[in-house]
């Protein structure tokens, strides 16, 4: 087990850094969403249009979409912390499944910006990029670890 975690230390660093970048980005968006009262349009605007659109909140309960972003990256970070602290490789299936959800959501939100709101928001695009990278690495991780981890983690699961 310890051997496997050493070999896949890169995955902890990569997923960990991406999750942290995502949390910072999504936190900025959430704060901007809540302070939109004082926001104004400048000559380089665009973001406020996306952040004040009806898609900036979930239809139920008015939860900001950006806050869901924070939750998404928080779970990714948890998967990494779980593996670091328990000294085992990152769980492959949860990471792949969760990052797929994130990727599909990002795809949807980016399409809304492109086709419905017709405006771009820098931090939203950055978050889409981050979740896409997490998804790509999750696929890479899935295939590179297939043979190695399977036996070891089968026992544990």
């Amino acid at each position: 087990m310890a051997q496997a975690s050493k070999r896949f230390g890169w995955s902890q660093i990569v997923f960990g850094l991406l999750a942290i970048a995502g949390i910072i980005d999504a936190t900025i968006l959430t704060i901007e969403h809540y302070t939109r009262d004082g926001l104004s349009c400048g000559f380089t605007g665009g973001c406020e249009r996306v952040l004040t659109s009806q898609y900036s909140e979930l239809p139920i309960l008015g939860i900001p979409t950006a806050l869901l972003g924070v939750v998404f990256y928080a779970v990714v970070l948890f998967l990494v912390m779980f593996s670091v602290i328990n000294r085992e490789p990152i769980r492959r299936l949860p990471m792949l499944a969760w990052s797929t959800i994130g990727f599909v959501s990002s795809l949807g939100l980016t399409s809304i910006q492109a086709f419905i709101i017709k405006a771009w928001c820098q931090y939203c695009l950055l978050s889409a990029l981050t979740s896409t990278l997490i998804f790509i690495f999750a696929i890479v991780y899935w295939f590179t670890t297939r043979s190695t981890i399977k036996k070891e983690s089968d026992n544990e699961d």
Partner: protein
Amino acid sequence: MKKYLIPILFTAAIIALLVFAVRASMSEDNNVKPAESTPAAQLTDEQKDELKQGQSKGADDAKVVLSEFADFQCPACKAFEPTLAEILAENEGKVRLVFKHFPLYPSPHKNALVSAYASEAAGKQGKFWEMHDKLYETQDDWAEASDPKDKFVEYARELGLNTDDFSRDLNAEAGKDVIDRDKAFGTELKLSGTPTIFVNGEEFDLRSGGGAEGLKAKVKQVVEEAYGTGQ
């Protein structure tokens, strides 16, 4: 259980740290803004007079004049509309609202200028504010249209305007003088964007001043100073 608990605690701690850091750096950004805009804080009497010129709503003899630099294609201006309406309703007869054009044209709002012409074209028929409301209401429908003029004519029809006159005025860039003048004035005042509000010639910084609630409080205070607290 412990296997899950410790990672959860670590994750929560990291997130708390990140959120704290982001919040701290963002509020630092906000604090810089008012300092940057101080040069425009003290206006000359001439400039204060200029702020009172334009399409206005509310009592003509109101002692408190709110001047709003806005752009019909600006979502933040749209979002700010209910606040202004509320202020006018709460201080009836005491507050006048003056609209100053500040179209963020051509970028980021490509239809900002033509929508300003539409408002002034409606103004020629005495319905500036009706068109003003209509343009905000329908903002999403025309904001990115390649040629929104047909839509504007449709709105004019809905508002009961003479559409032939409206089309002619719209095509003739109605109110161009006023709009250009407002825009140049706004640039002279070093406006960073829209909406920018002046209360009796004094700029109210929405970010540092507490947004909509802050403005309401500020207006209340100025109204009390002008009319006394008893009324």
